[in-house]
């Protein structure tokens, strides 16, 4: 393992760690204004949606719309199952099974 690589992963580690660390240290110490608490309360739902939807309806580089993806089709029953059962383990299992089965029938 050479020094260059060590410096590279150290640099990557630091720039990844700081955005994870600074808000925890700054925000857990002091009382938050109500609007900020409210704003942060919306972050989980917003960030999950921002991560999922582009992955389901866009492809390529640069990204463009492509709604004919098995992942998008499978996401509908997966979503309904999650909504009905609220079970993480069940949803993962059902999602995987559906995606696996869908792979056996390639879209023409």
């Amino acid at each position: 393992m050479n020094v260059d690589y060590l410096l590279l992963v150290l640099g990557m580690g630091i720039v990844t760690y700081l955005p994870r660390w600074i808000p925890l240290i700054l925000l857990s110490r002091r009382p938050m204004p109500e609007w900020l608490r409210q704003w942060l309360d919306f972050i989980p739902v917003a960030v999950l949606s921002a991560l999922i939807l582009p992955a389901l309806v866009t492809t390529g580089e640069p990204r463009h719309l492509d709604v004919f993806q098995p992942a998008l089709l499978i996401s509908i029953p997966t979503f309904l199952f999650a909504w009905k059962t609220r079970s993480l383990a069940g949803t993962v299992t059902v999602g995987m099974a559906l995606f696996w089965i869908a792979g056996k029938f390639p879209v023409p």
Partner: protein
Amino acid sequence: MTSGEEPPRTQERNTDGCSAIIRDGVAAAWPICLGYAPIGLAFGVLAQKAGLTPAEIGLMSLLVFAGSAQFIAVSMLSGGAAALPIILTTFTINLRHLLMSSSLAVHLKCLNAGWLTLYAYGVTDESFALNMTRFREKTWDWRRALALNHTANLAWIASTVLGGYGGLFIPAGAFGIDYALPAMFICLLVLQIRGGLYVAVALIAGLLAVAFSMLIPGNAYIVAATAAAATFGVFLKEWKGRASENGGVL
């Protein structure tokens, strides 16, 4: 261990034994581990092809612990990129954790700087979303969250190193395992929805993210769409509150 300024709610569970806490954390982490395994193996194989040894792969997974950034770093490495552009790219990809840690801070008020420093290491998309869901349950606390984080971390390091040994133990696409993480994200999204406002914020975030992802190069769309949608949510809530005060229609 605690600052002692306010009696933290999580102290209630302090009577639980260490092994019970670890058991809860590990048990809750399994969907994440299942999702990490194929991605970690794939990353290891790719990194090995880019000329990294298993030790180098393990070190990157240990120090960085961020899937998408590691994939992009390795592809940049094999393209002959210098260290600085790789580090800058890593920074922009992982900037979204800034929002996640801010949101987590609400639930970690009782921790001292040392524990927070340890906790920060384990903040990933997956552990964040799972812990935020669990923190609303009375049975969950920061110790279990830490156990969950580090179980996921071990799974990530182990699977990337295994991949680095050239072993694709799971054939590509087997059992739909590529869909483990998307399915988990979908369920975590569902679990975060606690009313109409959250549905609205999710829709806005998703649509903005799709639009931004096609307009802005790179991964800035995640942070931009998330921050915009959360801001929209605050204004919507404010507006809704005023409308009902004035006997409005909503």
